């Protein structure tokens, strides 16, 4: 089937329905393209690093607007494109369209939400059922998830990943050796890269929840020196200010979903890395998207009066 990517981009930007067979073709093409990418993609500066999107399509459009747009700028997205927001499908497809249209300008890294199991619980699956009445589109997207990269390396100096480090990983080559084309397992290096969190801990620690790792400054310092990089850029955790540097600037959390879940009131950030590796943060706020008639199309959080008992 022929695919007019620019036409699909237009539809997506307006939040309009995209036909099931179009999604199928789009996903298939994306898979073919992503298949050829390494687990850790090489990216050149200047580049803009973006954190979690979580289906907030209108804020994603703002992000592109504030940071130059994919026609002019290179982007690395750190994952968590879907779930929670009302436009997971449109957000993810828009990124795929850009990837197909401008393959060298956009790198998509897998987040812990880009899995079958998590999307079933946190909204993407429900959204597809609501929009299509069946789960085919969800299945197509999940197959693309399995091909997303696990990380990126910018100018051999900045390592990008969704969650963080793994005790099983010392070198970037060990990440390159992972067989990534699968559902994210519950354990092992691939799982850790998507799930682990930085914390003020002295050494590798278990999360109190009983699964998942926490890592501290010493693990970050060790990784930086072993791999001769100067920064780990990751997402995965909500930050009110949009970004947060830790461990003397050796790690940064970038968060790109403003007013997360339409009620947190946080700002969002993207991080632009210049040729000399200077870091520029751009902060942006949530938009109040409207339909053609000027009505808000994201439900406001006006409390719904009810006679609760």
């Amino acid at each position, binding site marked *: 089937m022929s695919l007019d990517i620019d036409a699909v981009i237009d539809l997506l930007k307006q939040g309009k329905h995209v036909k099931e067979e179009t999604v199928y073709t789009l996903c298939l093409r994306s898979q073919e393209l992503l298949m050829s990418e390494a687990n850790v993609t090489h990216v050149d500066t200047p580049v803009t690093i973006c954190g979690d999107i979580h289906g907030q399509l209108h804020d994603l459009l703002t992000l592109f*607007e*504030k940071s130059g747009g994919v026609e002019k700028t290179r982007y690395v997205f750190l994952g968590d494109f879907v779930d929670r927001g009302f436009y997971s499908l449109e957000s993810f497809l828009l990124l795929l369209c850009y990837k197909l249209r401008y393959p060298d300008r956009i790198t998509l890294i897998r987040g*812990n939400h880009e899995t079958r199991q*998590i999307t079933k*619980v*946190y909204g993407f699956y*429900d959204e597809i*059922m609501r929009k299509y009445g069946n789960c085919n589109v969800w299945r197509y997207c999940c197959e693309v998830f399995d091909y997303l990269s696990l990380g990126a390396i910018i100018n051999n100096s900045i390592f990008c990943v969704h969650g963080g480090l793994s*005790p*099983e990983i010392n070198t970037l080559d060990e990440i390159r050796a992972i067989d990534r084309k699968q559902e994210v397992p*519950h*354990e*092992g290096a691939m799982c850790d890269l998507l799930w682990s969190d930085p914390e*003020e801990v*002295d*050494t*590798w*620690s*278990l*999360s*109190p*929840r*009983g*699964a*998942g*790792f926490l890592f501290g400054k010493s*693990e970050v310092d060790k990784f930086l020196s072993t791999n001769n990089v*100067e920064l780990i850029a990751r997402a995965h955790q*909500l930050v*009110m*200010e949009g970004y947060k*540097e830790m461990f*003397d*600037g050796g790690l940064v959390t970038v968060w790109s979903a403003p*007013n997360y879940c339409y009620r*947190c*009131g*946080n*700002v969002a950030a993207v991080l632009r890395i210049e040729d000399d590796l*200077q*870091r*520029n*943060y*751009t*902060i*942006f*706020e*949530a938009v*109040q998207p*409207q339909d053609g008639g*000027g009505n808000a199309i994201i439900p*406001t*959080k*006006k*409390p*719904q*009066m009810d*006679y*609760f*008992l």
Partner: protein
Amino acid sequence: MSQPSSNNSSLNDSANQKLSKKPISINNTNVTRLHGINTIEINAARQMHSRTISARIPTTTTTRPNNQTSPPTFQPPRSITTTTTTTTKTSIRSTHKCNNPNNPHCPNCESIIIPAPVARMPILDTPSITIHDTWRITSQKGTILNSQQIDDWVQNKLKFNTLPEMIFGENYVKLENLKNGWELQFNALDSLKGVALNDSGIRVAYSEKWKKSKRIDHQRDQVDQESKDFDWTYTTAYRGTETKTTGEGRGLERDDELQLPMDKLSRMDKILYFDDMVLFEDELADNGISILNVKIRVMKERLLLLSRFYLRVDDVLCRIYDTRVYVEFKENKVMREFKQFEDDYNNILNKYKPINSRDPKSLLRDSNWVAENIPLVHRECESVQF
């Protein structure tokens, strides 16, 4: 309602922040300055806020001015009362009054007082109502805590380090009896003080498998055991913070025989004041949810407040702690009921009737459905009459 497509694009460019290449310790003053919110953004937020306030005015009022032409600097909401046609029948004896000029116009008219639909940073919305000059009800909604506030709570206010992902630290609901110096408040800080400082023993479903996977024994690096000095589910038996503002006087006393008057509370009496807010929420790293939510509705003769802690650990358990506060205004009577519910995740899932076409797992995201399908474990009741 119409909102300007906004001149935000120019506003935010100035928020681009440059950091030098090699940063930058947290203590560096350059950095702390960057954490603040840009003035222009504040004005934008204020404009947004004033628009949402005017949006609350009942539709019978005069048309609002076109915001497109509003000046870039913030102007406080126009004196709403003067532009509103007063339709109140003066014969109705007033029993309540609005305390916040930002509330929708309500000159003792029994019209509904609803907080702003979107209260965005850095604005706080604080609607309030007083009944019979005795009972004052106030609620406030803000944003989640920022990093500095979180650090402050961790270092100075709480005894554990890993706070919930979203803390609405400025949110509260407060019930006051002005004549008797009594107040009951629901807020996030006090609720988190109720989180146990030991291990709950609860683990996520795949924890055993995860830990048994041989890799942990063969680790090159030593791995610390999980910290067990707080309950990561944030379970709190918080029932509100009771204060006797005069330092003495009556307070709530235990009487489990009491029952809430469901007949009175089931009546569809007109709601004068309504609010619904989250105090804290954490998605347990996508293993479920831990959320504390407070709702209040005030009618002419009584009020009902429901504070619900809901915990769902996927494939492990569900837990609901409900606190209901009921006030009968004329009798100056307060009743507080506390109920604990708990069951295995799968027991609850099995209550799902296939007639219902919903995805059974989505039902477990609905605490109301779970509340109807989970056994009561414990109940207490208290009351006070002034």
